[in-house]
């Protein structure tokens, strides 16, 4: 099958970009999940092995990575609800654009609650 000419398949705007973001975040989360099961499995090796590896999650660079991971999860979760509303709610397709802006608003609120808490823990001010 020949490829579609440029500019016809991807429609742009909220519908396409939310789909792109959903893919990218889902892909990233999946690869973290593989690593996360492996690191947690070290509890079966020894307490020392687990604590050594989990200790690397507590340094500032990893702490920023965790903030990015949580951001990806929060977006994927909220946009997933939007996808279900588009699929199952009779008015969903009509409001899909508005719902993306609602998703972004909820994302900002959630991250505004999470980030200070997490970054204070990571950078030592949250004890």
């Amino acid at each position: 099958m020949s490829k579609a000419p440029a500019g016809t398949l991807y429609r742009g705007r909220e519908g396409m970009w939310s789909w792109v973001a959903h893919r990218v975040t889902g892909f990233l989360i999946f690869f973290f999940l593989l690593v996360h099961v492996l690191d947690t499995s070290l509890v079966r090796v020894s307490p020392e092995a687990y604590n050594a590896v989990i200790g690397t999650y507590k340094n500032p660079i990893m702490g920023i990575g965790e903030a990015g991971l949580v951001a990806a999860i929060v977006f994927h979760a909220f946009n997933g609800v939007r996808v279900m509303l588009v699929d199952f709610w009779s008015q969903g397709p009509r409001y899909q654009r508005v719902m993306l802006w609602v998703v972004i608003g909820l994302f900002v609120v959630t991250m505004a609650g999470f980030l200070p808490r997490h970054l204070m823990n990571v950078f030592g001010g949250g004890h």
Partner: protein
Amino acid sequence: MSQLATQAPAVAAPRSPRSRRTTRTNYELYGWVFMRASGVVLLVLIFGHLFMNLIDGEGINAIDFGFVAGKWASPLWQVWDLLMLWLAMIHGTNGVRTIINDYAERTGTRVVLKSALYLSFVVVVVLGTLVIFTFDPCPAGSPADLLPSFCEA
């Protein structure tokens, strides 16, 4: 004209029923339903997991062997983590399968990538399940200060 007519592919008569069937099963439909059903459950499970491990108490600084042992002493968190492991792995594997199908255009590339994906799925799910069910919170010979307090007895 006569030569063109003999070479033209067979074209169905107008209004004849289309044969759109490319598979015999409904597995793609079940996958579509599963992504939505598991997504709702995962939203609750993962937000709960993030709250317990990153927000509650001292957040990530509190996580160590004793923290995990304390959580898995409760059947609630064992079931929670087991369900999260299975649902997230199936949800994520099916998502990556879709991405591979979309972007890997050569059959051989798709086979290789999906084989690696399914192998990772089996290894990670089996390993994670075994760890949850065979976890020993008080391994013999480990320093007491690394273990949960209930190991003293």
